[in-house]
């Protein structure tokens, strides 16, 4: 029974890892490395952005190389410590994960540039850039890991980094927001851990490809439905799905505007990504059973989010509700589960990452120019800068999903997928939410931008720094580009969705012998 010491090939990967496969672990590893170096240089305020922005640019480069590699060769797997899966922790990047990681890297780079002026010396000394890099380590790790307990650990890494970013500055309202954010998110990740504990108890393995294989073989007698429902609740809470979304509007408007932008772009999308990965790869049949529940939650999320946006007078709180409304569309896509619906959800998530970042950054500039975030007092932004007004209008069109901007096509895909299976009410909810969002943002433009700056309204700083203008212009341009030329991204999103629906290639990349 004792294997001879020479026969290690049953347990270890003996051939050297191909250099291209290192890109799978490079994004989180690089972020951890750069983050810890920045942490050591915490007191060198001038040096921080000089190191952090090139580090983030390199992260985007690594993510882009990984994306190109995955696009060319299909899912890529690398195991830690050369232990064969399922014994070693596997990092597996498929098209969905690589796409999300690339978009996340772009958002972080934009945030790092915007923070040049938004985060003052005090914020830098409190460690904005180290926290940003550690947040990106968690986000990239969550997008690229192939092990479900490892996914939990990355969730916690990004959560603790987000706590640090949220209380940066320690204002009273930040502490108030952070209390609600911290407790409710901790409950959500604990639910995730509970579900993972049961999952381990049932399958005895934590590798997602291994679980997918074992679940397919023994579906009848395992209590998978309970598990799937627990995962839907945990990830729904992370993604801010109604009715477990109240931590988001309570906290997202309190931190610095660049932190809000990063949160809005990254954190809820990690929840959506995890829901796609777990529900599509591990529990496809259970997802079908739960699809009505997910669809109803999605419809309620998008409509109540849009109504919440309509009711707000503070621009930052309004944007928080716009984030929630977008999550509803993605949930609708997940509930449909067809290549069109899921592809639409992936496309919409990427669109939302880009546009919500741009919107929050634009709101920061608008607040600085107008001297207030309150729609009752703001005005005259168009007079101050027509260019900024035009860029904001592009982003407003994009978030309202109007053509020719990036939000239009994914909504078309999801609506068509909903009508294909006869879920007319879901399609109607998506269109109604889009209509309400259009009104909300039309009103923002009318009041804060178009309305002349009246007497008695506060006036802010008149200058727009280039470090703020550059990311806003870049993301508005991206929104226009994907609106005018949607075919490449559409094809990639659909192919990513097909990879989620039929995870054979994903499983084969972890276990090459399995057909």
């Amino acid at each position, binding site marked *: *029974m*004792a*294997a*001879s*010491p020479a026969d290690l090939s049953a347990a270890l990967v003996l051939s050297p890892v191909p250099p291209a496969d290192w890109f799978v672990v490079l994004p989180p590893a690089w972020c951890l490395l750069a983050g810890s170096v920045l942490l050591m240089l915490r007191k060198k305020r001038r040096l921080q952005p000089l190191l952090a922005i090139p580090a983030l640019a390199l992260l985007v480069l690594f993510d882009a190389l990984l994306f190109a590699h995955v696009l060319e060769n299909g899912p890529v797997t690398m195991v830690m410590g050369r232990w064969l899966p399922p014994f070693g922790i596997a990092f597996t990047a498929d098209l969905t994960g690589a796409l999300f990681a690339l978009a996340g890297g772009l958002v972080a780079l934009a945030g790092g540039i915007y923070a040049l002026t938004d985060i003052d010396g005090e914020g830098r000394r409190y460690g904005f850039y180290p926290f940003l890099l550690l947040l990106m380590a968690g986000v990239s790790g969550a997008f690229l890991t192939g092990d479900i*307990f490892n996914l939990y*650990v990355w969730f*916690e890494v990004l*959560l*603790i980094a987000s*706590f640090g970013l949220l*209380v940066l500055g*320690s204002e*009273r*309202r*930040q*502490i*108030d*927001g*952070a*209390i*609600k954010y*911290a*407790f409710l998110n*901790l*409950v959500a990740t*604990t639910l995730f*851990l*509970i579900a993972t*504990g*049961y999952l*381990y*108890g049932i399958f005895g393995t934590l590798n997602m490809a291994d679980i997918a294989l074992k679940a397919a073989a023994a579906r009848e007698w395992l209590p998978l439905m309970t598990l799937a429902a627990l995962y839907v609740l945990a990830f729904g809470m992370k993604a801010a799905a109604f009715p477990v979304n109240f931590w988001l*509007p*309570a*906290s997202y*408007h*309190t931190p610095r505007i660049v932190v809000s932008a990063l949160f809005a772009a990254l954190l809820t999308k990690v929840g959506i990504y995890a829901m796609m990965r777990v529900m599509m790869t591990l529990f496809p049949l259970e997802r079908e059973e739960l699809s009505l529940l997910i669809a109803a939650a999605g419809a309620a999320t998008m409509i109540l989010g849009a109504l919440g946006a309509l*009711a*707000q*007078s*503070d621009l930052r709180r309004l944007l928080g509700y716009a984030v929630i409304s977008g999550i509803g569309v993605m949930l609708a896509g997940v509930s449909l589960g067809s290549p069109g619906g899921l592809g639409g959800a992936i496309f919409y998530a990427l669109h939302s990452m880009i546009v919500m970042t741009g919107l929050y950054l634009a709101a920061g500039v608008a607040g600085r120019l107008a001297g207030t975030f309150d*729609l*009752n007092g703001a005005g005259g932004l168009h007079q101050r800068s027509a260019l900024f007004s035009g860029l904001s209008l592009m982003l407003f069109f994009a978030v309202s999903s109007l053509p020719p901007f990036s939000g239009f096509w994914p909504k078309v895909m999801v609506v068509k997928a909903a009508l294909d299976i006869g879920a007319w009410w879901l399609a109607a909810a998506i269109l109604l939410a889009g209509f309400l969002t259009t009104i909300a943002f039309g*009103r923002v433009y*009318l*009041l804060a931008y178009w*309305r002349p700056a009246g007497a008695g309204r506060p006036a802010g700083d008149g200058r727009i720094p280039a470090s703020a203008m550059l990311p806003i212009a870049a993301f508005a341009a991206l929104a226009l580009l994907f609106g005018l030329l949607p075919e490449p991204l559409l094809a990639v999103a659909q192919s990513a969705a097909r990879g989620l629906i039929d995870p054979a290639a994903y499983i084969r990349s972890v276990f090459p012998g399995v057909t």
Partner: protein
Amino acid sequence: MTELLFVILIGLFFAAAVYLMLSKFLVRVLLGVVLLGNAVNLLLFTAGRILREVPPIIPAGHDVPVALTANPLPQALILTAIVISFSFFAFLLVLVYRAYQDLGTDDANEMRVAEPENTPGPPTGY
């Protein structure tokens, strides 16, 4: 049999944690968080099956364990979870203390700085 006892214990932990976390006073919620973390750790431990108390050490000259040993993986998972839940508890403890200092209350219902009551809606006219 041991497993049944553990399951009942975990149920009690969860019940107490949920009860405490439903309180509006943050100190009780904090205690609930501690209990919740420990409930999950016990759950992970039980999910990995409670086997004999033989440490998973492979004797010299063998490549695999000779007898049935305890499952080491849940212990690694729990160790990770303990570290995480402890660091979160430390952070939350400081956060609640700061909130008590700055906001002057530990009643979550009275914490309305970020979302003030009776804020005026957006203007209805131009």
